[in-house]
């Protein structure tokens, strides 16, 4: 059994390697940034056009009023859950192999939430009146409707976003101190000096740090769960066939973790290559992540199955119709695509030989994400085109290039944020890697002494 990480890495080296990733970017980095910017530009252009012309250009219609925007919104929200999974859940479970990779996962959480937020905005018909939905005392004397799941969404996401930003930051303070101490003077140094709040790693600081980190982690887990079950309730709380499903909350959460893990694998591979993190993002860790992903994939598949089953055997004719439509109707290709990517492809992960095969994993992880995205689309659209009222069943609503453009743009936006983050802040947690190395070495020392005793 090979080790998750070499135990004899000098701590100084750890600092060195990670800090290196902050300095003089490689050409590849700039390429990625450029691509991201371009993609984001497309999205912005589309939004400007839609803002000026009206939502009609997205080729939505009555009654098919939601489209890719909401689907992609859910997709990004889902993506965010992996960060919490690694940093909070695994933290409580003392799975220390998470340590080298949780930082970027958390960053991913934050940024995918920011991306999701964008979709709430572009989806709104009167963006310029968006502030109506914020609960603040105003000269109109009226309030938003606290009964609306959309509002729950807003508050949940706000809570989630701010909490995970804080969590990310607090967890980063010791590292910021390191940067402060070991970087050459310059704006970065100033920045770190400011952000590290004069951290010196005194016993008092460490003690409170530990407690805080733990409590916040405890809060984040239920929060993350609530966030996605609330997103689920946008649909489950409604009356529409195919949406009004009891199992939606866990189904969404599972889906969220699923897509999150898939995304982690992708980014893991990319970072590992771009920033030369082979030492820390080691194959054994990747393997663990992959196995985790596989497990979640199976959970998701199971939840999928029971949802269909319950609809199938239930007496709700309408929702059964919708299900059948998904399978054979205009959306069939997307639906089967989702089944394939979401439930068939992950089976590959069950094979040891693929669990560490980087190219294969890259492809698979992308496929999984595609599958998850299709899943969200298949939740949103078919119900509209096949609701309770036959007269308004519409011909398949193929999204216009405006919608596609914005979906595309969102990936640019995400990549942009993420890449900038990785250059400005240490994307591998140095102090925790140190801890990991330290404890492991202690452990193995004990092991050695034990052996000598035996002789």
């Amino acid at each position, binding site marked *: 059994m090979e080790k998750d990480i070499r135990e004899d890495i000098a701590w100084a080296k750890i600092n060195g390697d990670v800090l290196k990733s902050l300095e003089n970017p490689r050409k590849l980095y700039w390429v990625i940034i450029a691509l991201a910017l371009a993609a984001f530009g497309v999205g912005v252009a589309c939004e400007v056009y839609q803002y000026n012309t009206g939502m009609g250009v997205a080729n939505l219609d009555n009654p098919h009023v939601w489209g890719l925007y909401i689907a992609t919104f859910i997709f990004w929200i889902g993506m965010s859950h992996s960060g919490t999974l690694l940093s909070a859940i695994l933290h409580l479970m003392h799975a220390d192999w998470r340590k080298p990779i949780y930082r970027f996962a958390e960053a991913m959480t934050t940024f995918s939430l920011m991306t999701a937020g964008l979709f709430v905005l572009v989806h709104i018909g009167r963006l310029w009146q968006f502030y109506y939905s914020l*609960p*603040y*005392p*105003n*000269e*109109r*004397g*009226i*309030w938003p409707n606290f009964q609306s799941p959309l509002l729950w969404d807003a508050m949940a996401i706000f809570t989630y976003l701010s909490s995970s930003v804080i969590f990310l930051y607090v967890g980063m303070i010791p590292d910021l101190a390191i940067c402060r101490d070991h970087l050459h003077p310059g704006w970065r140094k100033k920045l770190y000096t400011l952000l590290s709040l004069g951290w010196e790693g005194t016993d008092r600081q460490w003690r409170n740090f530990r407690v805080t980190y733990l409590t916040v982690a405890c809060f984040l887990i239920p929060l993350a769960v609530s966030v996605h079950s609330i997103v689920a309730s946008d649909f489950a709380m409604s009356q529409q066939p195919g949406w009004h499903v009891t199992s939606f909350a866990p189904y969404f959460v599972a889906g969220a973790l699923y897509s999150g893990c898939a995304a982690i694998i992708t980014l893991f591979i990319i970072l590992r290559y771009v920033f030369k993190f082979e030492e820390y993002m080691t194959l054994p860790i990747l393997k663990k992540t992959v196995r985790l992903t596989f497990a979640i994939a199976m959970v998701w598949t199971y939840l999928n199955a029971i949802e269909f089953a319950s609809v199938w055997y239930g007496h709700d004719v309408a929702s059964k119709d919708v299900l059948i439509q998904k399978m054979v109707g205009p959306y069939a290709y997307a639906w089967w695509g989702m089944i394939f990517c979401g439930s068939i492809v992950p089976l590959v992960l069950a094979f040891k030989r693929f669990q560490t095969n980087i190219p294969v994993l890259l492809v698979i992880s992308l496929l999984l994400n595609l599958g998850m995205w299709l899943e969200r689309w298949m939740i949103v659209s078919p119900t509209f085109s096949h609701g309770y009222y036959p007269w308004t069943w519409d011909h398949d609503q193929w999204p216009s290039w405006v919608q596609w453009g914005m979906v595309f743009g969102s990936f640019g936006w995400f990549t942009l944020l993420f890449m900038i983050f990785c250059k400005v802040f240490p994307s591998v947690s140095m102090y925790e890697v140190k801890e990991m190395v330290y404890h492991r070495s202690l452990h193995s020392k004990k092991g050695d002494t034990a052996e000598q005793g035996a002789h």
Partner: protein
Amino acid sequence: MHRIFHLSVFLIGLFSAATVYAADASQSAPMTPDSQWPLVEQPIEFPHNRHAKDMQIDCMYCHTYARRSAVAGIPPLQKCIGCHQSIESVRESPRIKTLFEYWEGSEDGKIAAKTPMPWKKVHDLPDFVRFNHERHIKRFIEQQNRPTQEVCGYCHGDVAELTVARRSKALSMGWCASCHEKEHPVTAAGGTPIGDQAYWYGFYKSEADAAGGDLKAHGPNDCWQCHK
């Protein structure tokens, strides 16, 4: 250390204060103190003070539509002329001259005869807000016999002190509400349901009947009263 502790206490205090404030809706309908909104340029500087204060002319003598329709109406040219052609004293004053130019047409023929005056709207609500003068006048002047100038003043300010009318009230939704949510006496004799609040009516009915239909209730609060 202590500094920070105080800070934190202060912050918490602030947070809770804000929440209480927010939770209290009446706060959120600020009664903006009467203030003078910018003056509006009118074709002639019509002296409201002269008519309303010195002459003691009832508002609704000129704004005659107010009690019969949703809009108060700018008095028709005819009305001004009706009096002024018999008031020689001011006949030659520049403002009256212009007035007559609009009625008879100007010498240079720029203004045709009987051209309505291009007044500018002073109290101009957004187009999706519908304020009904008739209702308010019926309610306060006819049912409760309050003096006209006072009632009009609720929204139009003390016009008797102005020349050309000038806005002095907020006219924001919250401002309207600040009056609507007051408990006004309801003469249920007129069969008016409690503040037109059918949903509440069920609850208030008993009280109403007990009070012989004579009790207080707040004004209409459903959105479609003003927005359609």
